[in-house]
């Protein structure tokens, strides 16, 4: 394929059309509500990339990418994991509990809370598996159902058994120094969480495309009856994929808690909406796993930049949520159109 052909395909591809279309519509919305786009967009870029904000954007990229994997991995097996919030919160609170309650030597003091966070997230997710295989409740429903009580349980734990004494705040005490994630360079926000999640993403991409398990997960997702007929233990594979997704969510929670400000603050994990942004990014990336990190980067940029835009240009950051919502709508419309054209 020649370079111009490749370029044309990229430009016409669903993600590019969706993002361009969403930005266009958002610009229209700005004009209608009386916001000057020539002020708003530079503010958006500055808010995400310049004035020392880049570091913060990259820091937000880490949990969003983690949550994107939490959604994308089970999706490969045909399971919709919408319970990211519950897995994230339980992962975070478990990591905090391990770091606070178990005295550990340096090194282990970081690794063990991360491992337990991932484990907790995986367990929360895997509850959905028997609900779907035994009782026929689809994962898209059961993960969501399990999520709310999991978030509440985390909230209860941080308000009562794990609460910081005598402050009345819904947060744990600061974690011991040994449990802090090592910072990258002299950064205040960036930790080894970034390289960790990047490496795990690369591992996932490899496993997805070039291992037996990846193949069996994909076969299960594309046609479950075909995989079952071929001898794949589809229930086990689906449960494994959900558990893997939950583990990524739990790890994302643990990374947040072990990073600055080094404590579990109730609501701090779920309030930024990492889960929804991640779902949007995965849907935007469509069926191409390699594109997932790029889509996450783009949406994180919009998310963080939106807050800068609000600070600087007085534009409500909800506008960037409109962009995000529009992206999903356009992706869905394109998918439907394509299906219709295929007839």
């Amino acid at each position: 394929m020649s370079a111009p052909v490749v370029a044309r395909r990229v430009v016409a591809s669903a993600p590019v059309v969706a993002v361009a279309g969403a930005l266009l519509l958002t610009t229209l919305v700005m004009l209608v509500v009386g916001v000057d786009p020539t002020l708003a967009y530079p503010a958006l870029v500055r808010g995400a990339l310049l004035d020392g904000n880049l570091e913060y954007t990259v820091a937000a990229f880490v949990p969003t990418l983690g949550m994107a994997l939490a959604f994308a991995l089970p999706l490969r097996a045909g399971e919709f994991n919408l319970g990211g919030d519950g897995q994230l919160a339980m992962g975070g609170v478990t990591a905090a509990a391990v770091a606070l309650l178990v005295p550990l030597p340096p090194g282990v003091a970081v690794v063990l809370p991360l491992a337990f966070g991932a484990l907790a997230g995986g367990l929360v997710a895997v509850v959905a598996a028997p609900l779907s295989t035994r009782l026929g409740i689809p994962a898209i429903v059961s993960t969501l159902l399990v999520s709310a009580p999991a978030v509440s349980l985390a909230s209860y734990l941080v308000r009562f058994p794990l609460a910081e004494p005598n402050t009345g705040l819904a947060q744990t005490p600061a974690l011991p120094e040994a449990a802090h994630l090592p910072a990258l360079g002299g950064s205040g926000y960036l930790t080894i969480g970034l390289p960790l999640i990047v490496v795990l993403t690369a591992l996932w991409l490899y496993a997805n495309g070039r291992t037996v398990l990846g193949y069996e997960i994909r076969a299960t997702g594309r046609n479950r009856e075909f995989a079952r007929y071929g001898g794949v233990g589809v229930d086990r594979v689906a449960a494994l994929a959900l558990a893997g997704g939950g583990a990524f969510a739990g790890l994302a929670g643990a990374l947040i808690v072990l990073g600055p400000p080094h404590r579990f603050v109730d609501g701090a994990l779920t309030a930024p909406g990492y889960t929804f942004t991640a779902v949007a990014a995965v849907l935007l990336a469509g069926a191409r796993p390699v594109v997932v990190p790029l889509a996450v980067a783009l949406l994180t940029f919009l998310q963080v930049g939106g807050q800068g835009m609000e600070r600087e240009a007085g534009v409500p950051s909800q506008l960037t949520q409109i962009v995000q919502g529009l992206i999903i709508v356009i992706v869905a419309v394109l998918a439907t159109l394509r299906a219709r054209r295929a007839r």
Partner: protein
Amino acid sequence: MYAAELVGVTKRFGPVLANDGIDLAVARGEVHAVVGENGAGKSTLMSILYGLHRPDAGEVRRDGTRIALRSPADAIRHGLGMVHQRFRLFPGLTVAENIVIGAEPVRRGRLDRAAANEAVAALSERYGLRADPSALVGGLPVGVRQRVEILRALYRHAEVLILDEPTAVLTPGETDRLFEVLRTVAATGVSILLVTHKLAEVLAVGDRVTVLRQGRVTGRFATSETDADELVNAMIGRSLAPSAPRRARPPEGDPLLEVRDLTVRDADGVARLSGVSFAVRPGEIVGLAGVAGSGQRELVDSVTGLRGAVPGVFLAGTPVRAGRDPRVAYVPEDRHGRGTAPDMSVAENVLMGAQRDLASRWSLPRAAVRARARDLVDRFSISAASVDVPIGTLSGGNAQKAVLARELTRPSQVVVAEEPTQGVDVGVRERVHDLLRTARDEGAAILLQSSELTELRDLADRILVLYEGRVVAEFPGDAPETDIGRAMTGATG
């Protein structure tokens, strides 16, 4: 003037020219057969006539005037009706309700049941299609359901009726009754387009026949002036070799597949199989006949391990293992639902079952997966642009060859084949039969389930007949079709 005409119809799907300047004309009251191999363009042509696809060039005419068809609704308005291969009926509604749906007689804003029943009864009477208007469709045999589909089209005043492979789901007896019905309906002036690949049917019921090959018309005949050989020639461009002689040496040795007193119940506790016993020896093909739903699905799923470790099934003397026993090669009937994952590549589809053999400790090398697929594509002469295209883009025959390639290269001694030539053309059918014969000659024990008695008689050494979950009869492979057909309906003696 023709009741319906397609003039110079051309339709392209991407690189595939499905219809290439096709002319087809159907006279009033005629039964017109459209035959051709799979992928010859029959379905596309009928979809254009029914408004499901729009042609790139050419036009559709009704009674001599050009009509524009943007949807099936347009087609219905112009007096065209279609009976699909898979019925589109509501099992929970009555016959009358299914027929009037979309054009219900209404009284005070509600369905007028009495009027609906009356209209349907009158319609049945007029065309000689017997069906009880108040019976629930879910409880009816397949042949009657098909009649309901036909009545629905006639209720909407169809003057041109398209039937897509209508006999695929019918027993021989039901097929005969369908043909009587078609003749009766045609006698009232309705034109019938019969899409099929079974030549005997064409000759039995058609007035004229149009043959398609690779998107073009390769022959037009009056059925009274042609024969099967001429039609086959037009369909595949050559004559068929006479079928291979039955092998003389009787199968011997211990059975590779043995089923002893197998009883299977469904989730509601209803027995789907009762006390089924048989054995298949190395080098033997045992045929399985029966009307759809007689327990074939349950038997096959039990033998392959897909129903779990069912007691009573033994492979080479040991009990079947749960979750697809690797000792069984299995060619399933439902090619898209079970036999393949249509949007995965050819290479990934033929990989299934061998993925662990190709993998090293940490990886499943893509090069090895592709190389193996290329080898299978060559050996089984599958035509595919590359092994990386989705298998769903292959023609039915090539997808089926891919399934056979995958299954017959498994290190298995037992082969279970379900409708192995359903929806494939004459040339592929021959090839599939050769592959099964070769497997047999190499010592495999083969269980062949087919609704085509000719196929069973061509291949099987013995034929078992299932009826309501029991083996009700056993015939030698060359028993007369009428005897087998009678046993399939449960008639004894």
